[in-house]
């Protein structure tokens, strides 16, 4: 059995080139340097990403603003308004005209009492002047009331009457044709 006994004082003993503690610390230092490098690179990369994202968001927001103010949509809305206006001319004309044939037929055959004689009808705008003869003012008043009760017609003022029985009624036509 061999015994390895070194009797040299500590100062003269051969020391290892690097001890375990130093080696461990050196490894930690390297690891920390690597970590620092990684963190630095990551921060730079994240900053670049942030810059890119901010640009992208600004671009999208610009597109949103442009999309909200779409000229094509505005042009179509204008076109629709123009077409709707054009479509309204004919119905507007039809609604505005008075069908005098139907109106006079209704007045003469539905509203004039037997004792009243009509001698003439003259249209002026939307009014109709009715000339005729009535046997009494009572008969004429009743005729006037009948006209007023009709939803299409309205008597303008009191029925004027003369002793000879002649009268002229001014009737306003409220609807384009008789109302059922």
């Amino acid at each position: 059995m061999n015994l390895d006994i070194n009797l040299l004082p500590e100062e003269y003993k051969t020391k290892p080139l690097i001890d375990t503690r130093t080696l461990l610390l050196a490894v930690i230092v390297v690891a920390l340097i690597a970590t620092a490098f990684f963190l630095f690179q990551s921060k730079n990369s994240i900053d670049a990403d942030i810059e890119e994202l901010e640009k992208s968001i600004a671009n999208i927001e610009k597109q949103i603003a442009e999309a909200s103010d779409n000229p094509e949509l505005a042009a179509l809305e204008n076109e629709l308004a123009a077409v709707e206006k054009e479509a309204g001319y004919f119905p507007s004309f039809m609604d505005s005209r008075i069908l005098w044939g139907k109106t006079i037929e209704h007045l003469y055959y539905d509203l004039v009492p037997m004792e009243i004689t009509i001698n003439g009808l003259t249209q002026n705008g939307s009014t109709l002047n009715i000339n005729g003869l009535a046997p009494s003012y009572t008969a004429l008043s009743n005729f006037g009331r009948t006209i007023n009760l009709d939803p299409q017609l309205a008597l303008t003022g009191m029925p004027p009457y003369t002793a000879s029985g002649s009268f002229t009624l001014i009737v306003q036509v409220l609807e384009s044709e008789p109302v059922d």
Partner: protein
Amino acid sequence: MINDLIYTLRSNIRVTALVAVVIALIVTNIMLYMPMKDASAERESLETREAGRKAQLEGILSQEEKNLEELQAEIDEVRASIIRFPEEFPTDQFGIYLAKGAETYKIELLSIAPPSGQVNKIIGGKNFPAYNTNISVKGELHYIISYFKYIEEGRYSSIETGNVRFTRSADVWSASFTITFVTWA
């Protein structure tokens, strides 16, 4: 005791230096990690915001496309429903139409004044070319009224009557009126 520590440090100068470097590096790493963590959170927030904006934009574009399609469809529908006045006044056919009506309703056409020159009829704020024709007729009242209805509610819907005057002489009625024929042109 401090002397002992100083002695220990001096005798382990390499280890001491390395420990100092390690401490410095740890501090550096912490200083690098903190802003990186903040930047990472900011990036995450911006990514969420970007995704939201993208979705918003896609929604707007999709809605706009839909709106455009709906608007176009509505325009086509309204356009298809437009009823127009005739492009021109059908002089010959209209004259024949009036004469036929007079025969049908047994009334006497006293006069038909030829259409006036073009006049303007304002409808909905727009001027439309129109033509006036003055007519006088004679006959029984119910026939004259039927003739009116034939004109007003007959084949030509772009017509209105005006200046209507009915007068009675015994049992015979006379009527005069103006027909306004509206055209589109």
